[in-house]
């Protein structure tokens, strides 16, 4: 199946500074990508490239193998995509006129415009706001209008630049649910710039991690979360603690790694002497009152609880076992095991739960 949208060998510069350098990226129809990275990584620039709004120093953009700017004009390409920014950027006119703006540029009939606008306002539960001035809307309402204005165009590619960042949690959750169902129904290809793990998990099935203008990791969200390529991706994936150490030995891929004078077992391709960063997902760290050294997990350490933080239905427990490690447990486990700061406990995790990255 040919890709819907592809970028090849794209370079964006500001003066002599490289802002974005992406050799290749493609997306199929209906795929959804979360674009993540630290501030200044080039996330928004990548989104601007994908929407043909960025001046390129080099490279090309394709829609269904048609090169934008050559076989397909920039304007025709933009008419097949839609962008929603962090600010709602509504025009100083009515909600209806805002949502109708792009349709009018496409010379649709008045009847079709009216019907599509009302349909999409309905999808986002803002039909009753049609006649209101856009300047009188709350943040949540304005962002719904911005999303309706983009989706009413029925774009093939939807590009979202942190559209929920300025909204409170309940409002953004509601909008995300509405957006998810609309995008799924229309098989729209989605690119979402976000700093929020939950947004990425809810809306995307793939992840692109950027750092210093380059893609450092790309793949299915579930794989990236299990095997993050660097500290930032690990942190985005919910791995707060990065352990650093040195490979001591390698026996057929089973490694002994020295971390803070402790030895942990892990799997990986690294030779002894290699400096590595170890990422362990907190849900893979098992806590027990008794020493479980007889089970299959290769790593067992006595530990002391140094912090517990409740997160709704679960707790994040931070432990010191010579190095600091996190675990997540259900609230009932906290009660059953009597987990509290200062308590001595045992920590276990499998060698396969340790993801190593060369430093």
């Amino acid at each position: 199946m040919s890709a819907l949208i592809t970028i090849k060998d794209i370079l964006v510069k500001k003066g002599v500074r490289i802002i974005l350098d992406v050799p290749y990226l493609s997306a199929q129809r209906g795929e959804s990508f979360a674009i993540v990275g630290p501030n200044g990584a080039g996330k928004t620039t990548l989104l601007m490239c994908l929407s043909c709004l960025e001046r390129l120093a080099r490279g090309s953009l394709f829609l269904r193998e048609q090169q934008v700017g050559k076989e397909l004009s920039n304007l025709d390409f933009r008419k097949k995509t839609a962008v929603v920014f962090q600010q709602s950027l509504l025009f100083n006119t009515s909600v209806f006129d805002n949502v109708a703006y792009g349709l009018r540029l496409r010379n649709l009939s008045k009847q079709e415009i009216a019907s599509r606008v009302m349909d999409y306002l309905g999808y986002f539960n803002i039909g009753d706001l049609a006649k209101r001035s856009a300047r009188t809307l709350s943040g949540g309402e304005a962002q719904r209008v911005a999303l309706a204005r983009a989706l009413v165009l029925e774009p093939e590619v939807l590009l979202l630049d942190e559209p929920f960042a300025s909204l409170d949690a309940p409002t953004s959750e509601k909008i995300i649910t509405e957006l998810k169902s609309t995008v799924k129904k229309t098989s729209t290809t989605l690119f979402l710039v976000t700093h929020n793990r939950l947004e990425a998990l809810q809306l995307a099935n793939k992840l692109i991690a950027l750092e210093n203008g380059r893609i450092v990791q790309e793949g299915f969200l579930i794989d990236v979360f299990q095997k993050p390529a660097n500290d930032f991706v690990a942190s985005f994936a919910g791995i707060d603690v990065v352990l650093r150490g040195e490979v001591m030995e390698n026996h057929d891929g089973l490694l002994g790694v020295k971390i803070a004078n402790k030895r942990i077992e892990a799997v990986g391709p690294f030779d002894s002497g290699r400096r590595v960063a170890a990422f362990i997902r907190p849900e893979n760290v098992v806590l027990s009152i008794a020493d479980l050294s007889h089970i299959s997990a290769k790593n067992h350490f006595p530990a002391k609880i140094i912090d517990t933080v409740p997160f709704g239905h679960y707790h994040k427990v931070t432990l010191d076992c010579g190095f600091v490690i996190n675990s997540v447990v259900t609230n009932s486990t906290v009660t059953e095991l009597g987990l509290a700061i200062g308590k001595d406990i045992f920590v276990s995790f499998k060698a396969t739960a340790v993801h190593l990255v060369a430093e």
Partner: protein
Amino acid sequence: MDLLISGFREAIRLIFSFDSEVFSITLLSLKISGLATLLSVFIGISLGAAIGITQFWGRRAIISVVNTCMGFPPVVIGLFVTIFLWRSGPFGFLGLLYTPTAIVIAQTIIATPIVMGITVAAINQLPEKLRLQALALGATRLQTVWALIKEARLPLLAAIMAGFGGVISEIGASIMVGGNIKGHTRVLTTATAMETSRGNFELAIALGIILLLLMLLVNTILTSIQMKGQTQR
């Protein structure tokens, strides 16, 4: 004090009796300054929007020049327009000196930087990504510029007010390039100055009041449009 009171009385009589001379001077002022404002709005908003939207080398310098020109002395503009339109000047062959057209030209030159400067500022205060948003929705460059001008329409009304206020009350350039010829190029400001110098204070006060009423009327209309726009926010 008596002079002032009798002056006001005479002014009110002249206004309400629709004195033909006062009426023709008022009409000519309105025509000349209205046309000059219209031209300056067209040129100033087009160029101001272009400067406001586009990024290019030397943009800051151009904005500084425009802002400086906003306070350019009308008498200096009058001097240069006179030189250009002088019989032996570069455009002397057009025979425009001491005609209403010459005053329109001078007033357009005075008002254009005012409209342009306020337009640049109005466009600059719009969210930076609004231009990208319009383009992303499928607008052409021209449609994008129009969308941004529409967004900045409230401050742009202030530009029109400032432009009109600047030229209707201007005297230096009008007298230099128009010559204050009775029935031909005599406008409210030049007539007021002349009648004052002659000691005809009643007529001068009447012309002054009409000038103020005219400015008040135009600004009231534009302000009400502006306020209507603001209450819709």
